[in-house]
C-alpha cells in the first residue's frame, strides 16, 4: 500500500462528511413530500365530504306554514268525493289560496296576491286534496294545517335562521309576511318526508328521490341476476376447464380490456344494439340493467377468478383422489370455498354499477320521470342520474336537494363496501 490512495480516501471521506448534511436534508425533504402527498389525498376526502354534508344537511328539513283551511264545497267545486271526474276537475288550489287570504287579510292587487300565493308550494292544493280524501268528514269543516312552503321561502327561511338571509328572490312584502308568521310561531322546519316518498318534480320542495332509488334498485336487481351467474360461470370456465390455447388467451385479453373500456362506450353499445337493433324501449330498467351487466361483467369475472385461484390445489387433488369428476370437484369443493370471494367481488361490482351514470345517459334514463317505477319495463331513472339532473337545475333549492341525494347515494355505497369488507374478513379462509 502506498500513501497516495490513503490521502485520496480521506479526501473522499471529507467529501462524504461534507455532503452528509445536504443528503440528510434531501432525505427529510423527500419524506415531507411523501407526507404532503398523503395529506393532500386525505384532505381531498375530507373537503369533499364536508362540502357535500354542509350543503346537503339542510335538505332533510323543510319549511312548513300553518294556515287555517276551510274545506268549502263550493270553492272546490266538488260535491261527491267518490267521483274521480269531479275530483280531477276540482279547483284544489282555491283552498290554499283562500287560506292565505284569510291569514293576511290586507292583501289586494294582483301583484301582491301573486306574491302571497307564492308563499306556499304550488302543489299544496293537491296535498290538501289527499288530506280530504283520507278523511272525507272534513268536507265543509275548518282546520289548522301545516302546509308546504315554496322553495324560495324555504331557502330564505333556512338562511334567515342561520343568521345570513338569502333574499335575492324575495320581495319586501314576503319578508314581512314571514316575519309575522315567525312571530306567531306559524312557520317552522319539519322533517322532509317528501324527499324519501316522492318522485321527481320541477318544484324543488315537491321533489323526492323515491323514484330514482326504486329505479336504481330495479336496475341493480337485474344487473346482479344477470352478471353474477354469467360472471361466475365464465370465471369457472377460464380457471378450471379452459385449455391453454389461443382462443382462451383471446378471451382473457378481451376481458382485461373490457374492464378498462370507458363506461360511456357501453352506453353507445346499448344505444346501437339494444335500442336501435332489438327495439327495447328507451329509459326502462331492462336496458339499463343489460348495459350495466356488460359493464360489470369484467370486474366480476376478474375478482371471481382471483377467488378461485386462492383455493389451494390440494383440495382439488384430494377430491379427485376420491374419484370425483372434474365437474364434481368444481361444483362441490372449489365453488363453495371461493363463494365468499366471489360475493365480495359481486358487491364491489354492484357498487360500481350503482354509482355509474354515463352509459345510462345514452340510453335515455336521463328523462324527467315523475312516477315511481314499479316494474322492469316502466320508464325510470337512477340515483346518480337524478343527481346529474338536479345539479343541472337552475333553482337554488336544488343544490341542497342534490347534496342530500348524494349523501343518500354515498351511504348506500358505504354500506355496500362495508358489507363487502366484512364478508371478506368473516368468510374468506386463509390457506
Amino acid at each position, binding site marked *: 500500500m502506498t500513501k497516495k490512495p490513503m490521502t485520496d480516501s480521506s479526501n473522499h471521506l471529507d467529501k*462524504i462528511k461534507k455532503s452528509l448534511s445536504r*443528503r440528510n436534508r434531501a*432525505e427529510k*425533504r423527500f*419524506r415531507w413530500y*411523501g*407526507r404532503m*402527498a*398523503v395529506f393532500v*389525498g386525505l384532505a381531498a*376526502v375530507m373537503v*369533499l365530504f364536508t*362540502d*357535500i354534508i354542509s350543503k346537503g344537511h339542510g335538505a332533510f328539513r323543510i319549511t312548513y306554514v300553518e294556515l287555517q283551511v276551510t274545506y268549502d264545497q263550493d270553492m272546490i267545486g266538488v260535491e261527491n268525493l267518490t267521483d274521480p271526474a269531479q275530483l280531477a276537475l276540482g279547483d284544489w288550489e282555491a283552498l290554499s289560496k283562500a287560506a292565505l287570504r284569510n291569514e293576511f287579510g290586507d292583501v289586494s292587487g294582483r301583484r301582491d296576491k301573486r306574491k302571497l300565493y307564492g308563499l306556499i308550494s304550488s302543489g299544496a292544493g293537491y296535498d290538501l286534496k289527499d288530506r280530504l280524501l283520507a278523511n272525507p268528514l272534513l268536507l265543509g269543516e275548518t282546520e289548522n294545517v301545516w302546509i308546504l312552503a315554496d322553495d324560495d321561502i324555504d331557502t330564505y327561511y333556512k338562511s334567515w335562521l342561520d343568521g345570513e338571509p338569502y333574499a335575492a328572490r324575495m320581495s319586501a312584502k314576503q319578508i314581512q309576511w314571514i316575519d309575522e308568521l315567525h312571530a306567531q310561531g306559524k312557520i317552522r322546519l319539519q322533517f322532509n318526508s317528501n324527499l324519501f316518498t316522492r318522485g321527481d318534480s320541477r318544484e324543488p320542495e315537491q321533489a323526492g328521490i323515491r323514484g330514482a332509488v326504486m329505479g336504481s334498485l330495479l336496475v341493480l336487481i337485474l344487473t346482479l341476476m344477470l352478471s353474477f351467474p*354469467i*360472471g361466475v*360461470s*365464465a370465471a*369457472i*370456465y*377460464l380457471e378450471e376447464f379452459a385449455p391453454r390455447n389461443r382462443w382462451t388467451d383471446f*378471451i382473457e385479453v*378481451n*376481458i*382485461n*380490456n*373490457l374492464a*378498462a*373500456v*370507458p363506461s*360511456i*362506450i*357501453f*352506453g*353507445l*353499445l346499448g344505444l*346501437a*344494439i339494444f335500442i*336501435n337493433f332489438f*327495439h327495447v324501449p328507451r329509459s326502462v330498467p331492462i336496458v339499463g340493467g343489460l348495459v350495466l351487466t*356488460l359493464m360489470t*361483467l369484467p370486474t366480476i369475472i376478474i375478482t371471481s377468478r382471483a377467488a378461485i385461484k386462492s383455493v389451494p390445489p390440494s383440495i382439488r387433488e384430494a377430491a379427485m383422489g376420491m374419484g370425483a*369428476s372434474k*365437474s364434481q370437484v368444481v361444483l362441490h369443493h372449489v365453488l363453495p370455498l371461493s363463494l365468499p370471494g366471489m360475493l365480495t367481488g359481486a358487491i364491489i361490482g354492484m357498487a360500481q354499477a*350503482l*354509482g355509474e*351514470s*354515463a352509459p345510462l*345517459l*345514452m340510453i335515455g334514463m336521463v328523462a324527467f320521470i315523475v312516477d315511481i317505477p314499479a316494474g322492469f319495463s316502466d320508464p325510470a331513472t337512477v340515483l*346518480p342520474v337524478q*343527481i*346529474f339532473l338536479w*345539479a*343541472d337545475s337552475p333553482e337554488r333549492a336544488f*343544490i341542497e336537494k*342534490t*347534496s342530500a341525494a348524494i349523501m343518500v347515494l354515498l351511504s348506500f*355505497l358505504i354500506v355496500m*363496501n362495508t358489507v363487502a369488507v366484512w364478508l371478506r374478513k368473516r368468510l374468506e379462509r386463509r390457506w
Partner: protein
Amino acid sequence: MQATNILILILGLGAFAFFLGRGRSLALAKPLGGIRKLHSLPSYYGLHAALWCALPSLVLLFLWIMFDDPLINSIVIESVAADIAPTDTASYNLLINKIANLADGILPRKGESAALIAAADHMSSLRVISRWALTALLLTISLLGLLWGWSRISASFRARPVVEKVMQNILLACACLAIFTTLGIVLSVMFESIQFFRSVPIFDFVFGLEWSPQTAIREDQVGSSGSFGAVPLFVGTLLVSAVAMFVAVPVGLMSAIYLAEYASKSVRTYAKPALEILAGIPTVVYGFFAALTVAPFLRDLGASFGLSVSSESALAAGGVMGVMIIPFISSLADDVITAVPQSMRDGSLAMGATQSETVRRVIIPAALPGIVGGVMLAISRAIGETMIVVMAAGMAAKLTANPLESVTTVTVQIVTLLTGDQEFDSPKTLAAFALGLMLFTVTLLLNIFALHIVKKYREQYD
C-alpha cells in the same frame, strides 16, 4: 301468455323432468341391486332429462322474443292500406309506433282512420297468435325433449359425461360473452361511423379545426351548415387529461412511495383505505363538486389575482378528475413498488445510500415499467371519463391550451349529441359514434400497451 309466465312454465317442466328422470333411474336400479349398478348417480339422469326438456325450449324462447316484434311489424306494414303506407324510415317508425300504441290501447281509438284501426287490430291479433303459437311450440318441444331424455335412461347409459359436457359448454358460452361484447362495441361503433364518414370525409373529421355540429333542420336556415372537425375536442380532452395527470401523478406516486417505504404499519392500515375511498365515490359526485365548489372557488381566486378564469375552466374539471385518479395511480404504484425485491433495497442501503436515494436511484428505476403502465391506464381513464367533464367543463369547442379557459371534450360531445330525441341517421347523431370510435381506439391501444408493459414487468420479478 306473457314471456315470464312461459319461462316459469318451462323451468317448472324442467324441474318435473329432473324428478321424473331421477325416479326412473332409481326404479331401474332397484332390481339390479342399488344405485351402484348405474353408470352415473341418479341426479345425473334427472339432470339429463331436465336439460333435454328445458334447454331447447329456452333457446327457442330467447330467439322468438328477439325476432317476433320486427317480424310482426313487417307483416303489419306490408298489409297496411296503401294510403298510409310509409315512404321512408322516419315515417315507418312513426307509423309502427302509432299502430303499436293503438294496439296496446295507449292511444285512444276515437278519431283515427279506419285503416290505422284495422292495422292495429291486425297487429294485436298477430301478437296473440304469436304468443299462443310460441306457447304450443315450446310445450311440444319440452315434452318431446322430456320423453327423449326419459326414454334414454338405462343402467348403462353414461349420463354424467353428457351432462358435464353440456354444462361445460354453457360455461364456455358465458366466457365468450366478453368476446361478443367487444365485437358488439366494435361493430356498433364502426357501422354508424362508416355511415357518418359517408357524409363527412374522414380527413375533415380527424384534422378539421372547427367543431359546430348544428345541422340545418330547414333548407334555408342560416349558420347551421355543421362542421365536424374534431381537433378542438381532441385538444380539449388532452388539456383536461393533462391537468388531471399533473395533479394525480405526483400525489399518487409520492403517497404510494411514502406508504410503501416510510409509513409505519398503523399509518398504512388507516391511510391506504382512506385514500381508496376516493376511488369509490361516483363520478357524478365529483362532477357536482367540481361544478359547484371548485369552479367558483377558482374563479374567485383568479379574480383576486386579476386573472379571468372561466367558470367552466379546464382547470376545475381536470383538477377534480386528478383527485379521482389519485387512488388509481397510488394503488397501482404501490403494487409495483412492493414487488421490487427486498434484496435491491438492502444492497443500496448497505452501500450507504439514504432511504430517499434508494427510492430515487434504485426502486423507481426498477419499478419504472410498472409505473409507466399504471400512468398509461390512468390516462386512458382520464380520456374516457365522462360525468366530471359533462358537469364541469364547457360545451363550446375552443382550440386553446390555456387551462383557465373553457374547453369541451370528446365525451362531453358524445353525451350532448346523443341525449334527447334525435333522428338516428342525421350526421349529428352519427358524429357521436365516430367520436366513440376514436375514443374506443385510443383507450384500447393505451390499455393493451399498458397491460402488456405491466405483465412484462410482473414476469421480470416473479
